[in-house]
């Protein structure tokens, strides 16, 4: 195999990057658009430090003349802060019907009805206190968020109420003419009844998702994966049919170029383009403009393995592209099919969107789709900083599927060369 002949393909195609505007768009601009959208729309600056305010309509029908009542509840709710801002923006309504009308119009996130006797019941240790909540849905996500916030708020409120009642009961028990041992037993039992589960919740993100920068790192690797899928599919699918339609295939095979040199040269030149594009995406992604954080240390073997995984991802995508070329009769049909399929798979296999967002049946795609493995493993190394020891199984899976897919590509390309040279 002559290196000069192979290098000539790489030089030839590198010139294409700077001279073909559509290629520049798909290789660089399109994934950058997604990174920018992620950085400034989906994960905007100050993510995690943002505020949430629920537009809450309240109908206070409580007339209890006790120390704690509906009016006091509203005052407390008005003062609840989250990240320095009021959690509830409260508007009072005189009737349930009026409040629900506003909720239906999308003017409110939720409505709370405070029934008459609320204060009396709340301060009486033997009575059940009732509240009614209506959750609206201004956007597809808002109902879930509102419901979660209101549930958490009133769960906390209910817990506080229980503790207050417990204190009152304990004071009563203290007055009873029974032994200290018996009083102790009552106190523990009452605490158990009032608070059967005393659970504390604390949010623990993976270390990688502690900051916006790391989230953007996750998406930057995703953008590389997405570009690999549609551009890799495309270049794999177009490798031979483009030469045929340009009228260069027969000329190439009349030169001393061997089939092996042609396929190696063509594959390496496409791989070089994909890797240059990936490098540009990572450089822009980690630049201050985007602010993604990716862990990379050239002396860390795991990080070098991530680069090999990325190369494997590109090779596997191109190999799958070769299969697309087998079922496409023309360059444009191969290219269109490759782009559509590549984008579709990048959105459904966990490459761009987290796989957890997908319905269960679609998650199977991520499990059986080898290029997604390489992107996921690269992320685990470069974003989650997984150690080398945990990557052995991934490496075996990724290397063996790369070899398998390259073999399939070789067979399909040879089939195509035979097919095209017959006419």
């Amino acid at each position, binding site marked *: 195999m*002559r290196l*000069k*002949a192979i*290098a*000539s393909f790489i*030089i*030839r195609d590198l*010139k*294409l990057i700077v*001279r*073909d505007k559509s290629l520049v768009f798909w290789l660089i601009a399109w994934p950058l658009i997604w990174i920018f959208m992620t950085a400034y729309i989906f994960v905007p600056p100050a993510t995690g430090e943002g505020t949430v305010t629920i537009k809450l309509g309240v109908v206070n029908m409580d007339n209890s003349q006790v120390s704690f009542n509906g009016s006091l509840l509203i005052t407390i709710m008005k003062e609840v802060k989250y990240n320095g801002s009021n959690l509830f923006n409260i508007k009072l309504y005189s009737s349930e019907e009026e409040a629900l009308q506003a909720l239906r119009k999308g003017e409110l996130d939720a409505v709370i009805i405070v029934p008459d006797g609320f204060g009396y019941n709340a301060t009486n240790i033997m009575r059940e206190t009732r509240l009614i909540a209506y959750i609206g849905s201004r956007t597809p996500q808002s109902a879930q968020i509102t419901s979660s916030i209101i549930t958490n708020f009133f769960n906390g409120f209910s817990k506080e109420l229980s503790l207050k009642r417990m204190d009152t009961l304990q004071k009563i028990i203290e007055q009873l003419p029974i032994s200290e041992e018996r009083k102790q037993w009552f106190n523990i039992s009452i605490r158990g009844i009032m608070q059967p589960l005393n659970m504390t919740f604390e949010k623990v993100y993976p270390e990688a998702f502690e900051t916006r920068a790391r989230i953007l790192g996750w998406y930057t690797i995703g953008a590389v994966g997405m570009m690999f899928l549609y551009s890799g599919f495309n270049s794999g699918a177009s490798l031979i049919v483009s030469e045929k339609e*340009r*009228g*260069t295939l*027969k*000329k*190439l*095979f*009349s*030169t*001393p*170029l*061997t089939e092996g040199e042609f396929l190696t040269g063509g594959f390496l030149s496409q791989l070089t383009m994909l890797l240059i594009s990936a490098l540009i995406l990572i450089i822009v992604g980690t630049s201050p403009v985007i602010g993604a954080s990716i862990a990379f240390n050239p002396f860390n073997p795991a990080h070098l393995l991530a680069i090999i995984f990325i190369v494997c991802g590109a090779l596997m995508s191109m190999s799958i592209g070769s299969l697309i070329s087998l079922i496409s009769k023309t360059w444009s049909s191969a290219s269109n099919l490759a782009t559509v399929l590549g984008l579709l798979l990048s959105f459904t296999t966990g490459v761009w969107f987290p796989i957890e967002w997908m319905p269960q049946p679609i998650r199977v795609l991520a499990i059986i789709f080898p290029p997604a493995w390489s992107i996921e493993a690269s992320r685990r190394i470069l974003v989650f900083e997984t150690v080398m020891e945990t990557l052995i199984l991934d490496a075996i899976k990724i290397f063996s599927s790369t070899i398998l897919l390259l073999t399939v590509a070789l067979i399909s390309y040879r089939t195509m060369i035979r097919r095209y*040279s*017959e*006419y």
Partner: protein
Amino acid sequence: MENEIIIVKEVTKSYNGFTALNSVSFTVKSGEVYVVLGPNGAGKSTLFNIIAGVMKPSSGSVKVLGDAPSNPSTRLKISYLPPTPPLYPWLTVMENIDFYSSLYGLSRNDARKEAMELLEILGIKDLSNKLASKLSTGQGKLASIVLALVVRPELLILDEPTTGLDPGMRRNIINLLRKQASNKTTILMATHLIDEAEELANRVAIMDKGRIIAEGGVEELKKLYAPPAVLVIKPSEENVKKASDVLKRHWSNIYSSNDEVRLHTENPDEDMPKAVLMLSENGIRILSVSVDKPTLEDVFLKLTGRRLTE
């Protein structure tokens, strides 16, 4: 046999039930300009693809420079130019030349030096840094000729190299090919242009429907198949068919095209006044009458009853 550069034996090529080549045999000697003449669809391109090693025959054998044409060491001495210019549109003319010459293992400097000389001969030196996508069809053809010649092949295989070119460009290419031939480059060329074949060929193979129907030197073929003279009558356009029908009442060797009727004759002095009189009597207006020497077109007419360019 040592000086036989191409040996084609009983080559047949069929695909999808269609026989593109049917038992074709011929040889081309070293330094010869061998022209394959035939209409579109005669099987010339299929034959050239097989000789260039990019297609395999269904049966029969081909040897080029003593070896199989698919052998890379044989290909090193061959340069094949397909009918469509094999240029990469995003590369300049010179970058295309760099790319192809590197496949032959040539150094960039040597290839560029040779290419500049050839571009100058063809009058397109100023196009060397122009993108191939910006070239006209003719300019693309000329640049492709340079691609083919820059590697200094022992055997040059050209499939319709001048099709679609204006007369000036064609003249440049023919002159360049004559120069190559004088440098002992063996040239195998396909064309459907009579004058090109007559001007360049040492030997001509006439192909029709996948077969070689005649082969030999230009004069030899004319002697064997063409009449001593051809009476060329040009009636007004609407009367060509009528004129042909009238003349066929008396002569059998009548061939008509869109604008003329050709009468193959042994005795033009006697036949010309007779033909003119017959046409006049039938009310057919004649624009011109001439007695021409036969061409390879007349050989083809004689052999197939059809014109080459039909």
